[in-house]
Protein backbone atom coordinates (compact mmCIF):
# COMPACT_ATOMS: atom_id res chain seq x y z
CA UNK A 1 0.00 0.00 0.00
CA UNK A 2 1.39 3.43 -0.80
CA UNK A 3 2.84 5.53 1.98
CA UNK A 4 0.09 8.12 1.51
CA UNK A 5 -2.20 5.94 3.64
CA UNK A 6 -1.94 7.34 7.16
CA UNK A 7 -5.47 6.60 8.22
CA UNK A 8 -7.96 4.06 6.93
CA UNK A 9 -10.09 6.64 5.11
CA UNK A 10 -7.08 7.54 2.94
CA UNK A 11 -7.57 4.19 1.30
CA UNK A 12 -11.02 5.32 0.20
CA UNK A 13 -9.70 8.71 -0.85
CA UNK A 14 -7.19 7.02 -3.16
CA UNK A 15 -10.06 5.13 -4.79
CA UNK A 16 -12.01 8.20 -5.91
CA UNK A 17 -13.12 7.90 -9.53
CA UNK A 18 -12.11 4.24 -9.48
CA UNK A 19 -14.33 1.19 -9.46
CA UNK A 20 -14.59 -0.23 -5.96
CA UNK A 21 -16.20 -3.20 -4.28
CA UNK A 22 -18.48 -2.53 -1.30
CA UNK A 23 -19.77 -5.26 0.99
CA UNK A 24 -22.94 -4.16 2.78
CA UNK A 25 -25.18 -5.55 5.47
CA UNK A 26 -27.95 -7.84 4.30
CA UNK A 27 -25.75 -9.92 1.94
CA UNK A 28 -25.62 -7.03 -0.49
CA UNK A 29 -22.58 -6.32 -2.65
CA UNK A 30 -21.97 -3.30 -4.84
CA UNK A 31 -19.43 -2.70 -7.56
CA UNK A 32 -19.26 0.79 -8.96
CA UNK A 33 -17.28 3.93 -9.57
CA UNK A 34 -16.70 5.99 -6.43
CA UNK A 35 -17.69 9.59 -7.05
CA UNK A 36 -17.84 10.90 -3.48
CA UNK A 37 -17.69 9.82 0.15
CA UNK A 38 -17.63 11.33 3.61
CA UNK A 39 -16.27 10.26 7.00
CA UNK A 40 -19.39 8.20 7.73
CA UNK A 41 -18.67 6.22 4.58
CA UNK A 42 -21.77 7.59 2.93
CA UNK A 43 -20.92 7.17 -0.74
CA UNK A 44 -22.08 8.12 -4.21
CA UNK A 45 -21.44 5.30 -6.66
CA UNK A 46 -21.97 5.38 -10.41
CA UNK A 47 -22.56 2.57 -12.94
CA UNK A 48 -23.30 0.23 -10.09
CA UNK A 49 -23.81 -3.49 -10.22
CA UNK A 50 -25.70 -4.69 -7.15
CA UNK A 51 -25.64 -8.35 -6.14
CA UNK A 52 -28.01 -9.62 -3.47
CA UNK A 53 -27.52 -13.12 -2.09
CA UNK A 54 -30.42 -14.87 -0.38
CA UNK A 55 -30.43 -18.41 0.98
CA UNK A 56 -33.59 -20.35 0.24
CA UNK A 57 -34.69 -23.76 1.42
CA UNK A 58 -35.87 -26.10 -1.31
CA UNK A 59 -39.11 -27.45 0.12
CA UNK A 60 -38.83 -30.81 -1.64
CA UNK A 61 -35.22 -31.68 -0.95
CA UNK A 62 -34.77 -29.52 2.17
CA UNK A 63 -31.50 -28.33 0.66
CA UNK A 64 -30.29 -24.81 0.98
CA UNK A 65 -30.01 -22.97 -2.30
CA UNK A 66 -28.08 -19.74 -2.54
CA UNK A 67 -29.93 -17.43 -4.87
CA UNK A 68 -28.22 -14.34 -6.26
CA UNK A 69 -29.97 -11.51 -8.00
CA UNK A 70 -28.21 -8.81 -9.95
CA UNK A 71 -29.25 -5.43 -11.21
CA UNK A 72 -27.53 -2.31 -12.42
CA UNK A 73 -28.15 1.22 -11.23
CA UNK A 74 -26.85 4.33 -12.96
CA UNK A 75 -26.14 6.27 -9.79
CA UNK A 76 -26.86 5.64 -6.13
CA UNK A 77 -26.20 6.82 -2.60
CA UNK A 78 -25.03 4.32 0.02
CA UNK A 79 -25.64 5.16 3.64
CA UNK A 80 -22.41 4.64 5.57
CA UNK A 81 -23.84 2.57 8.39
CA UNK A 82 -24.66 -0.37 6.12
CA UNK A 83 -21.07 -0.60 4.89
CA UNK A 84 -19.01 -3.51 6.18
CA UNK A 85 -16.02 -3.48 3.85
CA UNK A 86 -14.65 -1.47 0.96
CA UNK A 87 -12.01 -2.76 -1.39
CA UNK A 88 -10.35 -0.69 -4.10
CA UNK A 89 -9.51 -2.28 -7.45
CA UNK A 90 -6.38 -4.40 -7.48
CA UNK A 91 -3.55 -2.10 -8.46
CA UNK A 92 -1.06 -4.26 -10.26
CA UNK A 93 2.31 -2.70 -10.81
CA UNK B 1 -20.29 8.62 47.52
CA UNK B 2 -17.47 7.76 49.88
CA UNK B 3 -16.54 4.11 49.71
CA UNK B 4 -18.64 3.51 46.63
CA UNK B 5 -16.85 1.77 43.81
CA UNK B 6 -17.53 3.22 40.41
CA UNK B 7 -18.09 0.69 37.63
CA UNK B 8 -14.92 1.55 35.75
CA UNK B 9 -12.89 1.42 38.94
CA UNK B 10 -13.93 -2.20 39.27
CA UNK B 11 -12.69 -2.80 35.74
CA UNK B 12 -9.47 -1.00 36.66
CA UNK B 13 -9.01 -3.40 39.59
CA UNK B 14 -9.19 -6.31 37.16
CA UNK B 15 -6.08 -5.24 35.29
CA UNK B 16 -3.59 -8.07 35.35
CA UNK B 17 -6.17 -10.70 36.23
CA UNK B 18 -8.49 -13.01 34.33
CA UNK B 19 -11.73 -11.56 33.10
CA UNK B 20 -14.78 -13.21 31.57
CA UNK B 21 -16.44 -11.07 28.92
CA UNK B 22 -19.95 -11.84 27.73
CA UNK B 23 -20.87 -10.09 24.50
CA UNK B 24 -24.29 -9.14 23.23
CA UNK B 25 -25.12 -12.14 21.09
CA UNK B 26 -23.56 -15.56 21.32
CA UNK B 27 -19.94 -14.79 22.02
CA UNK B 28 -17.92 -15.04 25.20
CA UNK B 29 -14.25 -14.48 25.87
CA UNK B 30 -11.89 -15.06 28.76
CA UNK B 31 -8.52 -13.37 28.97
CA UNK B 32 -6.04 -11.46 31.07
CA UNK B 33 -6.93 -7.77 31.07
CA UNK B 34 -3.95 -5.62 30.13
CA UNK B 35 -5.67 -2.26 29.66
CA UNK B 36 -8.89 -0.52 28.68
CA UNK B 37 -10.19 2.93 27.77
CA UNK B 38 -13.31 4.98 28.50
CA UNK B 39 -15.37 2.96 26.03
CA UNK B 40 -14.16 -0.21 27.73
CA UNK B 41 -12.36 -1.22 24.58
CA UNK B 42 -9.96 -3.71 26.10
CA UNK B 43 -6.56 -5.20 25.40
CA UNK B 44 -6.65 -8.85 26.48
CA UNK B 45 -3.94 -11.49 26.48
CA UNK B 46 -4.02 -15.30 26.39
CA UNK B 47 -7.60 -15.23 25.30
CA UNK B 48 -10.02 -18.10 24.87
CA UNK B 49 -12.95 -17.23 22.65
CA UNK B 50 -16.15 -19.25 22.96
CA UNK B 51 -18.55 -19.30 20.05
CA UNK B 52 -21.94 -20.90 19.95
CA UNK B 53 -22.27 -22.84 16.70
CA UNK B 54 -24.74 -25.44 15.47
CA UNK B 55 -22.18 -28.05 16.63
CA UNK B 56 -22.11 -26.59 20.15
CA UNK B 57 -19.71 -24.33 21.97
CA UNK B 58 -16.36 -24.01 20.21
CA UNK B 59 -13.27 -22.57 21.89
CA UNK B 60 -10.45 -20.76 20.09
CA UNK B 61 -7.19 -19.50 21.58
CA UNK B 62 -5.89 -16.03 20.75
CA UNK B 63 -2.63 -14.46 21.92
CA UNK B 64 -3.37 -10.80 22.07
CA UNK B 65 -6.50 -8.87 21.12
CA UNK B 66 -8.05 -5.44 21.11
CA UNK B 67 -11.71 -6.04 21.90
CA UNK B 68 -14.25 -3.48 20.71
CA UNK B 69 -16.20 -2.23 23.72
CA UNK B 70 -19.27 -1.59 21.63
CA UNK B 71 -20.80 -5.03 22.00
CA UNK B 72 -19.82 -5.99 25.52
CA UNK B 73 -22.77 -6.94 27.71
CA UNK B 74 -21.31 -8.27 30.97
CA UNK B 75 -17.91 -8.49 32.63
CA UNK B 76 -17.23 -11.13 35.28
CA UNK B 77 -13.92 -10.70 37.11
CA UNK B 78 -11.86 -13.74 38.02
CA UNK B 79 -14.20 -16.36 36.63
CA UNK B 80 -14.65 -18.24 33.40
CA UNK B 81 -17.51 -20.17 31.79
CA UNK B 82 -15.71 -23.43 32.67
CA UNK B 83 -16.00 -22.73 36.40
CA UNK B 84 -19.60 -23.93 36.22
Amino acid at each position, binding site marked *: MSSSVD*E*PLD*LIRLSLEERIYVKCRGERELRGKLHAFDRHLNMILGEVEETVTTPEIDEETDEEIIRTSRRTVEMLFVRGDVVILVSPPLRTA | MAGRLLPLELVDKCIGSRLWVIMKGDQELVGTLKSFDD*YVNMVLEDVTEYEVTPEGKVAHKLD*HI*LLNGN*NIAILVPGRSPDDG
Partner: protein
Amino acid sequence: MSDTSPAGTPAATPAQGTSAPAAAEAKPAQNKKVTEFLKTILGRPVVVKLNSGVDYRGVLACLDSFMNIAMEQTEEYVQGQLKAKYGDCFIRGNNVLYISAQKRR
Protein backbone atom coordinates in the same frame (compact mmCIF):
# COMPACT_ATOMS: atom_id res chain seq x y z
CA MET C 1 -25.94 -1.65 18.40
CA SER C 2 -25.39 1.97 17.64
CA ASP C 3 -23.66 2.70 14.40
CA THR C 4 -22.81 6.24 15.20
CA SER C 5 -20.98 5.81 18.49
CA PRO C 6 -17.26 5.74 17.99
CA ALA C 7 -15.32 2.84 19.39
CA GLY C 8 -12.22 4.81 19.98
CA THR C 9 -10.50 7.44 22.02
CA PRO C 10 -12.38 9.18 24.79
CA ALA C 11 -11.46 12.55 23.34
CA ALA C 12 -14.54 12.39 21.15
CA THR C 13 -17.13 12.16 23.92
CA PRO C 14 -16.60 13.05 27.56
CA ALA C 15 -19.83 11.32 28.61
CA GLN C 16 -18.17 8.42 30.42
CA GLY C 17 -15.72 10.70 32.13
CA THR C 18 -18.46 12.79 33.70
CA SER C 19 -20.31 9.78 35.03
CA ALA C 20 -17.17 8.23 36.45
CA PRO C 21 -14.74 10.99 37.28
CA ALA C 22 -12.56 8.99 39.64
CA ALA C 23 -12.11 6.23 37.12
CA ALA C 24 -11.41 8.76 34.41
CA GLU C 25 -8.64 10.28 36.48
CA ALA C 26 -6.92 6.93 36.67
CA LYS C 27 -7.35 6.57 32.94
CA PRO C 28 -4.75 8.41 30.85
CA ALA C 29 -2.09 5.78 31.41
CA GLN C 30 -4.57 3.06 30.46
CA ASN C 31 -5.60 4.83 27.29
CA LYS C 32 -2.00 5.11 26.34
CA LYS C 33 -1.65 1.35 26.69
CA VAL C 34 -4.52 0.74 24.29
CA THR C 35 -2.84 3.10 21.83
CA GLU C 36 0.49 1.39 22.42
CA PHE C 37 -1.05 -1.96 21.64
CA LEU C 38 -2.25 -0.53 18.36
CA LYS C 39 1.20 0.80 17.53
CA THR C 40 2.82 -2.55 18.23
CA ILE C 41 0.52 -4.40 15.85
CA LEU C 42 0.80 -2.01 12.87
CA GLY C 43 2.35 -3.72 9.88
CA ARG C 44 1.87 -7.15 11.43
CA PRO C 45 -0.38 -10.01 10.42
CA VAL C 46 -3.66 -9.80 12.29
CA VAL C 47 -7.05 -11.44 12.44
CA VAL C 48 -9.99 -9.07 12.50
CA LYS C 49 -13.24 -10.67 13.60
CA LEU C 50 -16.53 -8.96 12.83
CA ASN C 51 -19.70 -9.20 14.87
CA SER C 52 -21.16 -11.34 12.09
CA GLY C 53 -18.49 -13.97 12.82
CA VAL C 54 -16.58 -13.40 9.58
CA ASP C 55 -12.78 -13.32 9.96
CA TYR C 56 -10.38 -11.19 7.95
CA ARG C 57 -6.72 -12.21 7.94
CA GLY C 58 -4.14 -9.80 6.57
CA VAL C 59 -1.50 -7.24 7.33
CA LEU C 60 -2.71 -4.29 9.39
CA ALA C 61 -1.90 -1.09 7.48
CA CYS C 62 -3.57 1.42 9.78
CA LEU C 63 -6.58 2.13 11.93
CA ASP C 64 -8.32 5.10 13.51
CA SER C 65 -10.20 5.86 16.71
CA PHE C 66 -13.44 4.43 15.27
CA MET C 67 -11.66 1.11 14.74
CA ASN C 68 -11.94 1.65 11.03
CA ILE C 69 -9.21 -0.57 9.63
CA ALA C 70 -7.09 -0.64 6.48
CA MET C 71 -5.58 -4.03 5.70
CA GLU C 72 -3.39 -5.49 2.98
CA GLN C 73 -3.32 -9.00 1.47
CA THR C 74 -6.63 -9.69 3.10
CA GLU C 75 -8.35 -13.05 3.12
CA GLU C 76 -11.99 -13.40 4.09
CA TYR C 77 -12.99 -16.52 6.04
CA VAL C 78 -16.62 -17.49 6.62
CA GLN C 79 -16.99 -20.36 9.09
CA GLY C 80 -13.31 -21.11 8.65
CA GLN C 81 -13.50 -21.34 4.86
CA LEU C 82 -11.65 -18.95 2.56
CA LYS C 83 -14.29 -17.04 0.64
CA ALA C 84 -12.50 -14.08 -0.93
CA LYS C 85 -9.21 -12.22 -1.22
CA TYR C 86 -8.71 -8.48 -1.39
CA GLY C 87 -5.49 -6.62 -2.18
CA ASP C 88 -6.29 -3.69 0.01
CA CYS C 89 -9.43 -3.36 2.06
CA PHE C 90 -11.16 -0.98 4.40
CA ILE C 91 -13.33 -2.32 7.22
CA ARG C 92 -15.81 0.01 8.90
CA GLY C 93 -15.11 0.06 12.63
CA ASN C 94 -18.64 -0.49 13.88
CA ASN C 95 -18.56 -4.06 12.53
CA VAL C 96 -15.38 -5.00 14.37
CA LEU C 97 -15.56 -7.39 17.31
CA TYR C 98 -11.81 -7.65 17.89
CA ILE C 99 -8.39 -7.28 16.36
CA SER C 100 -6.11 -10.15 17.26
CA ALA C 101 -2.35 -10.41 16.87
CA GLN C 102 0.12 -13.20 17.49
CA LYS C 103 2.64 -12.48 20.18
CA ARG C 104 6.06 -11.65 18.84
CA ARG C 105 8.34 -14.55 19.67
